[in-house]
């Protein structure tokens, strides 16, 4: 009896769904995996997918999200097991390795020219290697100097420093205010230690990879850039224990009003608005030594080679990158726009704390997109942590990282 009842219910449901959607049976499922920038990320993309699914009947998009620290490992595991999603979000620096391994689908032939033209060229160009575009820039950020206005004023400084010498002077004065107040934050631990060093490297005119394809980690500019940070540390102008401080530690200190200056990206605006609305702060360009520069980072969203629904996947990507969805994404996550059309959007241009990142776009430099970068970055981070601790001179500790990098570049 029961069997019959369930059977007929199932049949009715099936018939009804046919009647309602017409082509329900032929809809292709596209699995899309995102990494979480914040607790809002999943809800945002679920909503975009729901709108997309409701807008047509050929494609059904399913969203999965993972925290960033698990993304790379999970993706590698899924690719080796043959269970990778059709579309995956990733750090652009992993993309190079994935592209070399042939697990990503070149996207240029799948998308329309108009769609490709809608991106800011700097950011789209980063996704290209060896004549192919391996993904689309889903998020981009530049970095700037966050200054605590109150502490600056207390220390008798009128304007945010524009050179490293001015920054040093300001940091020393701020640190002298109180034992629990530090002049500037320097990162020495956890993810992106090398990124924090790039601010100094590039503003000292250094390069990560030189024009002849060799490591620039032990160049004179690189040593000067490292010694620039070491002088802040030895002068007592930084938070204590630089070698143990992660990016989050510095941001928390700034939000607590204990840090005069810190270099960070637009997402910190969001954290400060949520956690520390009382902290009065401003953002200016990264202090310079010999030239202006900032660290630009993009994240990529790619179609995987193993996907059997590549065209449907790109159809969803085109939808996801429409103006409405992108503006919403910019608002909830605080990244700089990757679409040309967004650059004039009042949300980005009218807020000085957002506009400063747009203005720095032209001097943005990027981490090299080479396979094995993770390994090079780890040995660089290790060398920096040794140099920051004062145990070994920068010139010596960087040599090891440069040698390791040359070895990996030659592989």
């Amino acid at each position: 009896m029961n069997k019959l009842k369930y059977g007929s219910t199932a049949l009715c449901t099936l018939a009804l769904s046919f009647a309602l959607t017409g082509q329900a049976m032929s809809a292709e499922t596209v699995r899309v995996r995102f990494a979480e920038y914040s607790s809002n990320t999943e809800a945002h993309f679920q909503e975009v997918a729901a709108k997309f699914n409701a807008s047509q009947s050929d494609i059904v998009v399913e969203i999965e999200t993972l925290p960033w620290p698990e993304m790379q490992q999970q993706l590698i595991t899924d690719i080796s097991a043959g269970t990778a999603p059709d579309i995956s979000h990733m750090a652009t620096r992993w993309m190079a390795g994935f592209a070399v391994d042939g697990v990503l689908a070149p996207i240029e032939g799948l998308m329309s020219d108009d769609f490709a033209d809608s991106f800011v060229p700097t950011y789209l160009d980063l996704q290209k290697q060896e004549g192919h575009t391996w993904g689309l820039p889903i998020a981009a950020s530049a970095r700037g100097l966050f200054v605590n206005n109150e502490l600056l004023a207390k220390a008798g400084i009128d304007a945010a420093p524009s050179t490293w010498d001015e920054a040093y002077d300001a940091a020393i004065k701020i640190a002298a205010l109180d034992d629990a107040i530090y002049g500037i934050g320097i990162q020495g631990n956890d993810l992106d230690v090398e990124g924090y060093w790039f601010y100094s490297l590039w503003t000292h005119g250094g390069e990560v990879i030189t024009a002849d394809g060799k490591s620039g980690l032990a160049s004179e500019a690189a040593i000067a850039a490292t010694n620039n940070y070491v002088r802040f540390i030895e002068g007592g102008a930084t938070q204590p224990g630089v070698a143990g401080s992660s990016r989050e530690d510095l941001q928390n200190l700034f939000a607590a009003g204990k840090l005069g200056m810190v270099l960070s990206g637009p997402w910190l605006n969001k954290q400060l608005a949520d956690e520390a609305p009382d902290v009065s702060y401003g953002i200016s360009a990264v202090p310079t030594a010999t030239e202006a520069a900032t660290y630009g980072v993009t994240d990529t969203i790619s179609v995987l080679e193993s996907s059997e629904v590549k065209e449907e996947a790109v159809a969803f990507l085109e939808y996801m990158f429409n103006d409405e969805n992108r503006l919403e994404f910019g608002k909830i996550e605080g990244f700089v726009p990757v679409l040309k059309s967004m650059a004039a959007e009042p949300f980005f241009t009218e807020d000085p704390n957002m506009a400063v990142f747009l203005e720095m776009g032209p001097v943005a430099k990027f981490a090299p997109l080479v396979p094995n970068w993770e390994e090079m970055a780890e040995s660089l981070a290790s060398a920096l942590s040794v140099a920051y601790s004062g145990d070994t001179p920068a010139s010596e500790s960087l040599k090891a990282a440069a040698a390791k990098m040359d070895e990996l570049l030659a592989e």
Partner: protein
Amino acid sequence: MTDSSVNNPDGRARLLKLPSVFLILPSLFLSALVIGYPIFDVLRMSISDVNRYGHVRGFAGVDNFLKIFNDPIFLQATNQTLIWTFCVVGGTLLISVPIAIILNGNFFGRSVARTILLLPWAVSMAMTAVVWKFVVNGDFGMLNHTLETFGLIDTKIPWLADATFAFAIEILVGILVSMPFTVTILMGGLSAIPDSLYEASSIDGASHWQKFINITLPLLRPFLQISVVLNVIYVFNSFPIIWIMTRGGPANKTDILITYVYKQAFAFGRIGNAAAGSVMMFAILLGFSLLFLFITRSPKETL
């Protein structure tokens, strides 16, 4: 099996005649598969050229092993692993024996004390590590706050920024999480020692210390051996505490073999190196276990 076959003496006899080994064959086969296959696969990958997705591209001989032996961080991590294992297991035993003896005695609130002691075991190791990471945080941590309140320090100490402090703290956390298991094993051993031995020794005028040395320790010996072997295996392979608190930093000075292997496999995509590292870990543990069992084999005497 029907009722008739059970009640029928012939049927039962036939069943008993089956070599009993046939009955355990399926489970033996399953165990061999579940335990043996991963070991086989790691061994195979350690001598193969493997891409980062785990696909074998060819035979590599001892290349992977040469690569890790030429990596100074591997040697450093091996050294640190030995220190880590020795300190955590040694420390755990040193404090577990007195705790087990105290908890084995009769006193008011013993069951509460036992429960409290077992609590760290019930909390996931990852959460324990996260909580301790907060506790020793240089700026907002409870440890510095407490020390400052008691006037023991006047500037905040960034504990995890210094490799020596960081490693010492990680070892202490390791001891904390290994203790409940060890105390439980030792308490099992203590409860098996007959009271009459202590009573007899009291009549003979033995001191507490003499009882401990001449009765408790010798009878606890097999349990101490089990806890040493099991703890060495667990601690040697223990990943979450170090990964969560320092990720092997600063400057790789708190890396142990398991974090090294993890980085090789999942951050750098060098599965071959990771497999070679795992084989080395397996060999070290196997060597240790055999050596330890050989050294501590029971003397052929009965009490």
